């Protein structure tokens, strides 16, 4: 009679074979994901961690959404280059009245939507009106200055926009207002939704790509429009068949996908990942000074940080060099509240750097001269760089006998709590990318009207600064405008609502065969202009 051991031996072989078969069947795989092609043309695959739930250009924007919007839609003008400049696009030229109130845009004659309809002045009027009336997404940029009744299609190729008051930043927003096809939007409107449902994943654009397949949570495939009205920047043989944006939420699989050639370009990696990728053969990592200030915002309305001298003490105690170390050298320290690439940026004299004597001097003027207090430093859960900055802050403030609690919070919670001074953290780590290089965008973040927004969790409320920001916004003379913003920068530093940290370098990692990538600092974090990129 066989023993149980002998029976087990027989079963072992069989079971192991079964198990191996079950798993192994999945390992015989095709090499279909090596490089995407359509016919003899390549499909460029870009990967980031952020989905695109809504493509509608008048409803929403963030870096991934805008990247796809700019691929499918055109605007009157476009941002290119470093430093960023506005160049004509659907508008071949424009002029403005001496008082800066009336803007006249002259459209190119050959632009057409993907369905063949011409892009005319009525389309521009309709799109601007739609953006304002929906009161979502980009509306905040111009709605205070733009009455839909004052947007007039003079003729098929001329649009006249009359502002309710001069606005120096007006032109800087024009590249972000995309033009949709009114006929398609109207035809697909459901009730009074102004075509929102249709444009969630529908295509009513005239851009270089048209939608082929859309799953905003996972994969978005766009076909290149072969006869794009603007033409293509590369030789016809190099023109890609299209682009694919693939959402891979975690950096580790995204990195693996690039290594394996499943994707051609990636963004949103950690500094260490970028360093490792840069050392790998066949992979190139770009490295450019960014336009996204990293600041530690201090609650100016509650707790010890409501005291200006206390805020100054923290600003002088912080070890700024730690920021550069954390970023593996890929960052520059801020020397103004405005990023370097912003119009009107000036380096502020005696900008706070670590100086413990000065820090103690300021601290001595507060009720906390001997320290002995605890502050919360809150950062977005999962952002390793912010966590490490918190540790650097903790170490820096030990010299003042101030204890830091490093607190991770999900982004919605952090923003929700930061909406009110009573619930906002003492110190909050925040990256803010300005949507345009116009200084008004940054200056407005320190006006009292901004308090409670995620980029203004410092809750600053200074009447003098409010007046300066309002006056600069209406100034039409370029020289006077620059002077006004220089004074604003100084005033912000005097009030020290933040520990002004660094400008993190912007990086993208890509296969070495990827060509045509051009960095433009005004684009949002991971956003790339896919129009020019090819392999």
């Amino acid at each position, binding site marked *: 009679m066989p023993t149980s051991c002998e029976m087990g031996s027989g079963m072992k072989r069989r079971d192991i074979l079964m198990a191996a078969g079950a798993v192994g069947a999945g390992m015989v795989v095709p090499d279909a994901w090596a490089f995407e092609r359509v016919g003899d043309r390549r499909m460029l*695959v870009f990967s980031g961690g952020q989905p695109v739930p809504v493509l509608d250009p008048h409803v929403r924007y963030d870096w991934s959404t805008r990247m796809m919007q700019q691929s499918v839609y055109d605007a009157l003008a476009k941002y290119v280059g470093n430093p960023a400049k506005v160049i004509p696009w659907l508008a071949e030229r424009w002029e403005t009245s001496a008082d800066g109130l009336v803007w006249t845009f002259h459209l190119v004659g050959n632009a057409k939507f993907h369905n063949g309809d011409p892009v005319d002045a009525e389309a521009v009027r309709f799109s601007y009106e739609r953006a304002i009336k929906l009161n*979502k997404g980009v509306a905040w940029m111009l709605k205070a200055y733009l009455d839909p009744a004052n947007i007039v299609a003079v003729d098929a190729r001329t649009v006249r926009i009359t502002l309710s008051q001069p606005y120096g930043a007006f032109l800087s927003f024009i590249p972000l207002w995309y033009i949709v096809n009114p006929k398609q939007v109207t035809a697909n409107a459901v009730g009074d939704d102004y075509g929102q449902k249709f444009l969630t994943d529908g295509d009513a654009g005239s851009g270089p790509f048209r939608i082929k397949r859309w799953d905003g949570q*996972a994969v978005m495939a766009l076909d290149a429009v072969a006869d794009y009205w603007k033409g293509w920047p590369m030789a016809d043989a190099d023109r890609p068949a299209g682009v694919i944006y693939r959402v891979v939420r975690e950096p580790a699989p995204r990195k693996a996908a690039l290594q394996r050639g499943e994707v051609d370009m990636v963004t949103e990696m950690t500094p260490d990942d970028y360093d490792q990728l840069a050392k790998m053969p066949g992979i190139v990592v770009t490295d450019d000074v960014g336009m996204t200030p990293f600041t530690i915002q201090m609650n100016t309305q509650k707790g010890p940080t409501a005291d200006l001298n206390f805020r100054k003490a923290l600003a002088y105690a912080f070890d700024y060099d730690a920021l550069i170390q954390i970023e593996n050298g890929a960052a520059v320290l801020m020397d103004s509240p405005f990023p370097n690439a912003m119009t009107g940026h000036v380096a502020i004299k005696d900008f706070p750097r670590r100086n413990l004597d000065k820090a103690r001097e300021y601290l001595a003027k507060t009720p906390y001269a001997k320290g002995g207090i605890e502050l919360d430093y809150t950062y977005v859960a999962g952002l390793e760089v912010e966590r490490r900055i918190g540790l650097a802050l903790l170490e820096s403030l030990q010299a003042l006998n101030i204890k830091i609690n490093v607190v991770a919070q999900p982004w*919605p919670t952090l923003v929700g709590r930061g909406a009110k001074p009573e619930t906002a953290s003492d110190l909050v780590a925040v990256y803010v990318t300005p949507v345009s290089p116009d200084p008004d965008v940054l200056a407005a973040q320190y006006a009292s009207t901004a308090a409670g927004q995620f980029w203004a969790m410092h809750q600053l409320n200074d009447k003098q600064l409010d007046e300066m920001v309002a006056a600069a916004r209406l100034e039409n003379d370029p020289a006077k405008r620059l002077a006004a913003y220089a004074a604003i920068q100084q005033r912000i530093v005097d009030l020290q609502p933040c520990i002004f940290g660094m400008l993190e370098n912007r990086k993208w990692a890509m296969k070495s065969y990827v060509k045509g990538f051009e960095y433009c600092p005004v684009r949002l974090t991971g956003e790339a202009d896919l129009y020019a990129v090819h392999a």
Partner: protein
Amino acid sequence: MLRWVAARLALLGLMLGGLVVITFVVSNITPSDPAALAAGPDATRDMIETVRREYGLDRPLPEQFLRYVTDLAQFRMGRAVQTGNQVSDDLARYFPATMELVLLATMLSVLLGVPLGILGAVRRNQGLDHAVRILAVSGVALPAFWAALLLQLVFSVYLGWLPTSGQLSVATAPPVPISGMILLDALIAGELGVFREAWSYAVLPAFVLALPSIAAIVRVCRAEMIEVLGADHVTAARAHGVSGGRVVFWLALKNAMLPTLAMIGLRLGWTLGSSFLVETVFDWPGIGLYAVSSAIASDFKPVMGVTLCIGVTFMLSNLLIDLAYGWLDPRTRSA
């Protein structure tokens, strides 16, 4: 029996009501503002109010709850703020992908768990048994997130055998949706190439999702097999010269399978609930990923919808197990 079933169904209704209340309350006490997040980072206060009004978030909480319950009674779950879609439509779109993964994981856990449990019992306290027990402990102890990343590194980056994430190559057109499960739809359509490719994408996430279930099934199956193999009737069978294979498969396994089957049923609900992390790491477009994306945006209607969906599935699977037990063993009906 009927009274007992009715009591169980009434209890199910009560639990469902509790689940609705809990998900609604938890979703609304978090200090975040879905309207502000949906309106965008630079939105002015009146823009945020526009979104708030559009989605009824400006109404008092009791009114919002009443509307939510009324919607639920009509199998609607409100609109997702992020996408503007009806949550029920989104769930119908994403649920098949999750079920595909869960069914694959369950299949893997049975195919691996039962044989390994038998092996462990038959070769008790030997090297193989120790290995099986280590696997069983590891399956429970290893965080799915970590196991997923590790397996991606080994099988995708180092060995290059499997793709890292997703459900299908971006250049491959998915089969015409019938069930919504790509593997099944590919088979129905006779697209074997697509099936093969989809299988290569599914095997890693399914295996990671199956790990805790494999561990649980191995432990139960091994323990039951050991108990049955030591029973008098098995010893008697051996004494009468019944072959080893027949003893294990016909006498022992048959008896040991009842608790194992119960465990498999229980794990189905757990596996569904565990899909969040696995779907996130592998970017598997199911309800777990949908819920995580929505939670990040504080869009709670989808989160509540997914919670209810998983909760109901879990309750139903438990109910079926209860009913099966009650049918098989009338003594449990009094419990």
